[in-house]
C-alpha cells in the first residue's frame, strides 16, 4: 500500500518511489549517482588528457600514451548519455507502475470516501489537486531530490579536487557559493508564494476566458453584448497576475544574477590565485583548465537550475501535506462492494423524530420528522425547494449518518446496516441520474449484475417503451451510448430518462425511489411516465418526489414537507379536505387548467 492513513514526511519524497517500484527506484538512484559522480571524474580525466597531450607535444612521452585518456574521456561522456537515455526507459516503466498501483489506490480511496466530502467544495478541490498530478508526482519528486543531490555532488567534487591540490582556496569557494544556495532557496520560495498568491485571480481570468469564448454562454454573450466588457476584465486580471509575478521575479532574478555573478567572480578569483601555483608548477596546466571550465558551467547551473529545483522542492513538501490530509479522510466500510445478494424481505421502515443538519452548517434541514413506510404502498414526498425531501433520501441510503433520532429498517437502526446491505434495499432514480457511456444493455443491466437475464432486460425495455428506439439502432441493445467510442450514439434527455428508469426496475431492491428523474420532461410525458411506473410497480414499495402534484396524487400516502418538518400527511382526497398547504399548492397548479366560463361554452 502506498496510500496509508498517516502523516507523510519529507522522507516520503524518496520513500514513495521505493513503494511504487523498488527495483526501478534503486536503478534510478544508482544511475543518477553515477552521472553525478562522473562530473568530478570528468574534471580529473580532462586534466589528465590535457597534460598528456602537452607532454606528447613536448615529446616528453610517446603518442601511444594518448590512447588511454581519449578512450576514458570518450567512455565517460558516453556513459553519461547512455544513463540519460536509459532513464527514459526507466521513467516510462515507472509511470506504468504508478498507473497500476498509486493511481488505482487513489481511485479506490476516493470511491470509499464518506459522502459528505463529495459535496464539500474545499475537500473536493483537495482531492482534485491530488489526483490531477497522480501519474507523475511520485517520480518527479524523487527525481527532484536526486537533482539536489546531483548539484551538491558537483560542488563538493570541485571543492575536494581543490582541497587536495591547493587547500587554501577551498574555503573561499564555500564562502562564495553559499549565496547561490541561499538565494536559490529563497527564490524558489518567493516564486512559489507569488504563484500561490495570484492563483485565485488567475483562476478567475481562466474562468472569464471560458465565459467569453466557451459554448455555454454563447447566447447570453451575443444578446447581452458583454463580450467587450468581460474581455477587458479578463485582460486586467491576466495583467494583474503578470505584474504581480513579474515583481516577484524581478527581485529573485536580480538576486540570482548577483549571486551568479559573484560565483563567476569567485571562480575567476580562484583562477587568479591558481596562477602562482601554475607558474611554479605546483598544479598542472591541465588541471587549471579543466577546473576553470567546470566551475564556469557549474556557476550556470547554480544560477539557472538550482532555483527551479528548490522551488519544486517547496511545492513537493506542500503536496505531501495535502496527501496526508487526503489519506486521513474518513472512509465508508464496504463502499466499493456490490449489493449483498441475500434476499432482503422488507417489512417496515420508520423515521422516529429525525433531525438533521448538514456538516459545517447550522440550519436544521430536517426537524423532528416521523413517518412510516410499509411494503407494497406508494408514497409521495412534496414540498417547496429546500423543504428537506431529497435529504430524506440521502439519510435513507446512508450518505449521512450524523442525524438525531431513529431510522429503523425492519426494526433495526439504519446505522447498523453495512453500506452493501443498504444497496440491496433501495433502488433509486435520481434527478441527476447517471448517463453511463456504456452500451444500452450494460446501462440497464448494471441495475442487477448478479442475476440479470435477457428476458428481464427486454421486459424492462418494453415496459419503458424503448423497443422502437432500440430496433432503429444498428447494433440494437449493444449500441454504445455517449462519445467515448467512434460508433457511440447520443440520446435525447427523455430517452436517457427511460433508460435510467429501466435500470431502476431491473434492480431487485424492494424499495424504489424516484427523486424527480423527470424534471426535464414536459408535464405530459412526466405524467405518462409516472402512470406507467405505477403500473409496472404495482405491488412494490415506492417513494416519489415531484413538484407536479398532478402526477403523484395516486399515491397511497402523501407527505407534505415544509421547512424541514412534515406538516400534512395522508391521501390526496383527505389532504384536499384539510385545505392546508397541499390544497393551496394543488389549487395554484389547478388554476392554470381551470376552465372559465367562456371555455365551458366553447367545450359545449
Amino acid at each position, binding site marked *: 500500500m502506498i496510500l496509508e492513513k498517516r502523516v507523510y514526511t519529507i522522507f516520503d519524497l524518496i520513500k514513495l518511489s521505493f513503494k511504487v517500484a523498488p527495483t526501478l527506484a534503486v536503478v534510478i538512484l544508482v544511475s543518477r549517482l553515477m552521472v553525478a559522480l562522473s562530473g568530478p571524474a570528468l574534471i580529473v580525466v580532462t586534466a589528465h588528457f590535457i597534460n598528456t597531450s602537452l607532454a606528447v*607535444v613536448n615529446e616528453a612521452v610517446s603518442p601511444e600514451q594518448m590512447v588511454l585518456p581519449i578512450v576514458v574521456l570518450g567512455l565517460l561522456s558516453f556513459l553519461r548519455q547512455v544513463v540519460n537515455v536509459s532513464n527514459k526507459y526507466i521513467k516510462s516503466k515507472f509511470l506504468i507502475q504508478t498507473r497500476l498501483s498509486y493511481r488505482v489506490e487513489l481511485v479506490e480511496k476516493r470511491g470509499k470516501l464518506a459522502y459528505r466530502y*463529495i459535496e464539500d467544495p474545499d475537500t473536493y478541490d483537495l482531492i482534485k489537486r491530488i489526483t490531477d498530478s497522480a501519474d507523475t508526482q511520485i517520480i518527479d519528486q524523487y527525481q527532484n531530490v536526486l537533482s539536489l543531490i546531483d548539484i551538491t555532488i558537483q560542488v563538493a567534487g570541485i571543492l575536494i579536487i581543490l582541497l587536495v591540490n591547493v587547500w587554501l582556496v577551498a574555503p573561499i569557494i564555500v564562502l562564495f557559493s553559499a549565496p547561490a544556495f541561499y538565494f536559490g532557496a529563497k527564490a524558489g520560495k518567493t516564486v512559489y508564494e507569488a504563484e500561490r498568491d495570484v492563483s485565485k485571480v488567475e483562476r478567475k481570468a481562466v474562468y472569464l476566458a471560458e465565459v467569453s469564448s466557451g459554448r455555454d454562454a454563447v447566447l447570453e454573450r*451575443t444578446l447581452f453584448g458583454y463580450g467587450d466588457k468581460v474581455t477587458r476584465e479578463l485582460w486586467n486580471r491576466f495583467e494583474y497576475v503578470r505584474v504581480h509575478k513579474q515583481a516577484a521575479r524581478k527581485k529573485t532574478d536580480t538576486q540570482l544574477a548577483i549571486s551568479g555573478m559573484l560565483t563567476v567572480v569567485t571562480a575567476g578569483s580562484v583562477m587568479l590565485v591558481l596562477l602562482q601555483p601554475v607558474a611554479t608548477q605546483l598544479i598542472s596546466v591541465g588541471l587549471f583548465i579543466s577546473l576553470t571550465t567546470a566551475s564556469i558551467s557549474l556557476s550556470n547551473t547554480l544560477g539557472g537550475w538550482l532555483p527551479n529545483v528548490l522551488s519544486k522542492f517547496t511545492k513537493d513538501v506542500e503536496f505531501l501535506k495535502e496527501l496526508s490530509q487526503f489519506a486521513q479522510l474518513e472512509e465508508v466500510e464496504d463502499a466499493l462492494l456490490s449489493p449483498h445478494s441475500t434476499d432482503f424481505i422488507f417489512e417496515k421502515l420508520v423515521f422516529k423524530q429525525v433531525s438533521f443538519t448538514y456538516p459545517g452548517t447550522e440550519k436544521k434541514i430536517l426537524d423532528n420528522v416521523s413517518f412510516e413506510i410499509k411494503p407494497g404502498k406508494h408514497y409521495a414526498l412534496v414540498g417547496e425547494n429546500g423543504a428537506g425531501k431529497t435529504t430524506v433520501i440521502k439519510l435513507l441510503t446512508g450518505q449521512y449518518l450524523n442525524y438525531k433520532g431513529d431510522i429503523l429498517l425492519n426494526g433495526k437502526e439504519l446505522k447498523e446496516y453495512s453500506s*452493501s446491505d443498504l*444497496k440491496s434495499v433501495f433502488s433509486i432514480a435520481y434527478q441527476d441520474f447517471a448517463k453511463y457511456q456504456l452500451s444500452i444493455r450494460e446501462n440497464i443491466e448494471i441495475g442487477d449484475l448478479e442475476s440479470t437475464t435477457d428476458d428481464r432486460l427486454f421486459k424492462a425495455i418494453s415496459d419503458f417503451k424503448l423497443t422502437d428506439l432500440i430496433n432503429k439502432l444498428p447494433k440494437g441493445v449493444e449500441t454504445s451510448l455517449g462519445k467515448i467510442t467512434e460508433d457511440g450514439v447520443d440520446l435525447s434527455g427523455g430517452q436517457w430518462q427511460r433508460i435510467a428508469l429501466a435500470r431502476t426496475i431491473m434492480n431487485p431492491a424492494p424499495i424504489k425511489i424516484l427523486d424527480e428523474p423527470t424534471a426535464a420532461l414536459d*408535464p405530459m410525458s412526466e405524467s405518462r411516465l409516472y402512470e406507467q411506473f405505477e403500473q409496472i410497480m404495482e405491488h412494490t414499495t415506492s417513494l416519489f418526489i415531484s413538484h407536479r402534484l398532478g402526477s403523484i396524487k395516486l399515491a397511497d400516502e402523501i407527505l407534505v414537507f415544509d421547512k424541514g418538518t412534515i406538516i400534512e400527511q395522508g391521501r390526496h382526497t383527505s389532504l384536499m379536505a384539510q385545505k392546508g398547504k397541499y390544497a393551496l399548492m394543488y389549487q395554484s397548479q389547478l388554476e392554470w387548467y381551470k376552465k372559465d366560463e367562456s371555455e365551458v361554452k366553447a367545450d359545449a
Partner: protein
Amino acid sequence: MPKKKVPLFKVAREVLKYTFICWPTATSFYLLIGVTLGVLTGLSVWVMQFAFDSVTELAAGGRTMEAAILPVILLIVFLTSQEAVIALYTYYMNTIEARMHGFMSRKVAEKTAKLEPVLFEDPQMLDDINKASEGTSQAFGVGNTIISATTLYLPYIIIIAIYLYNLIPLLTLVILLTFATKMVALVVRSKLYMDLEEQSAPLRRKRLFYEDAMIGRQYFKETRQLGIFGFFKGKYMTSVHLLNRETWKADARAATFDLITEILNGINDVIILYLLFHSLQNGWITVGAFAAVLASVNELSDMIEELISDHFTVVAEDLGKISYLIKLFDLPEKTGEDREVNWRGTVEFERVSFSYPNAQHPSIDDVSLSIKNGETVAIVGENGAGKSTFTKLLLGLYEPTSGEIKVDGHAISTVSPEKLYKGVSAVFQYYQRYQLTLEENIRISDSGGEADLVPLMEQAGVDWESRSYPEGTETMLSREFGGIDLSGGQWQRVSIARGLYRLHDLIVLDEPTAAIDPLEESRLYEKFAEISKDKTSVIVTHRLGSAKIADKIVVLDKGKVVETGTHQELLANKGQYSEMYESQSSWYMN
C-alpha cells in the same frame, strides 16, 4: 473551421506578429538582448583561448605573472557580464510569455464574441475553437523558438562555426553531423508520438470515463448505490493495461532510437578528441585553442540539444494548436449595417426554415407568422418541437437557412450585432450561472444600464436580504471564488432578474420556471403578465395552463406551426392543443 491546413510559414508569421504587437518595446529589447547573448557566448571561446594560452605560456616560463593576469581578468569580466545578460534574457522571456498568454486569450475572446452563435452548435467547430483556446498559452513558445533560434542560437553557432573552421575545418563537418543526427531523432520521435496519440486517444477517453464513472461527481452516488465500482474497475484496469502497452511500445522505441543517436554522438566525441589531439601534436593549434575547443564543443552540443529538444520538440507538439488559433482568427465575423432596429414594430416570419449544421432535418420548417407590438405570445409543443430554436431565430441569434425575418418592415439579417440586439432581452432555458457577485450577475445583461436593482429583484423573487445572500448584492455566487452556492430555483430567479434588467421592447422567456416550485411559479407568471403589459413578450412553456395568459398561442410540432390562436380558439379547434390541454388538465381535474 475550414479543413484546409494553415501553411507553416503563415503560422510563424502571425505568431511573430502578435508577439510584437503584444508588447513592442519589451519584445524589441528582448531581441537585442538575444543577439547580444548569442554574440557574447560565441566570442567567449576566443577569450577563453586567449586566457588559456597565456596560462600555458606562464607555466612554460614564457610569460611573466603580470602578462598572464590580464587575459584571465578579461575572461572573468566577460563571463560575469554574460551571467548578467542571461539573467536579463530569462527575465524578459518569462515576462513576455506571461503577457502574451493574456494577450492571446484576449484576442480569442474578442474574436469568439463576434462569431455567429450557430457555429457553436457544430461539434467539429466547437472542438476546433477549444483547441484554439488551448493554444493561447503556447503561442509564445512557438514565437519564442523562432526568435531565439534567429537572435540567440544563430549568431552563436555562426561564430563558433567560423572559429572552428579557422582552427580545424574538419571539425565544422563533425559538428554539423551532430546537429543532423539530433534533427533526425527529433523528426522520428515526433512521428512516433503522433502515432501513439492517434492510437491511444480512444483508449485514454475510455480510461478517463471509467475513472469518472467510479469517482466523478456526477456518477458518484449512483455508482455507490448500485454497488458497481468493481464493474467499472475491471473495465478501467483493462484500458490501463492496454494504454500502458501502447505507451511502453512508443517510449521503448523512442528510447532505442535515442540510444543509437547517443552511440553515434559518442563516436563523434572520440573523433573530435582525436582530431584535437592530432592538431595539437602537429602544432596546428595552440594549447589554449585546444582547451577552448574542448570546452566549447561540449557547450555547443548542449546548446544544440537545448534548441532541438526544448524548442523544436515543443513547437512540433504545439504547432497544431497554434494553427487552430490562426484559423480561428480567419473566421468570418457577424457584421452588418449600422441601422437601428425598432423592436416596437411588428415581427414577421416569412417562410422561415432553419437547420442546425450537419442536421438532416430542419428544426424550423417553413414558418410564417407575425407578432405585434405589445402582444404576449406563448410557444408550446413537446420536447424537441423547435420552440427554443424559434426564439433564437426571433432574437436574430441564428440566421434562417431560408426565408426572412422582418422587424418593423426591415430584414434583420443585415443589421450589425451592436444595433440588432438593442431593445431585446431574454431569459434562456439554459441560463448562465456566472461565478460573479449577485449584482454583477444581474447587471451583466446591460453594460450601460443604470436601473435600480431592488424593484427588479423583488419582481423576480430574488430574496437578496435573506440569509441566503450573506453580503447582499455583493455576495459572490461561487464557492470557488469564496462565495456561496445557490439552489437551482434561486439561480433561476437571478436569471429572470437579469433578463428583466436589460432595457427591452421585446423579451423572450424560455421555460423560465422549470426549477421553481408550484406556488412561486404561479406568482411569477402573474408578475410576467404585469411587467410585460406594454411590451412584447414571447414565452416558451410546457405548462399549457400558463399559456392562457397569452394573447396568442403558437403550437409547434416537428418545426412546423400547427396551430395559432387564443386559448379559447385553440380549444374550440379540437386540434393538437386541445388534446394536449385535456390530457394535462385531466391530471388535476379528476
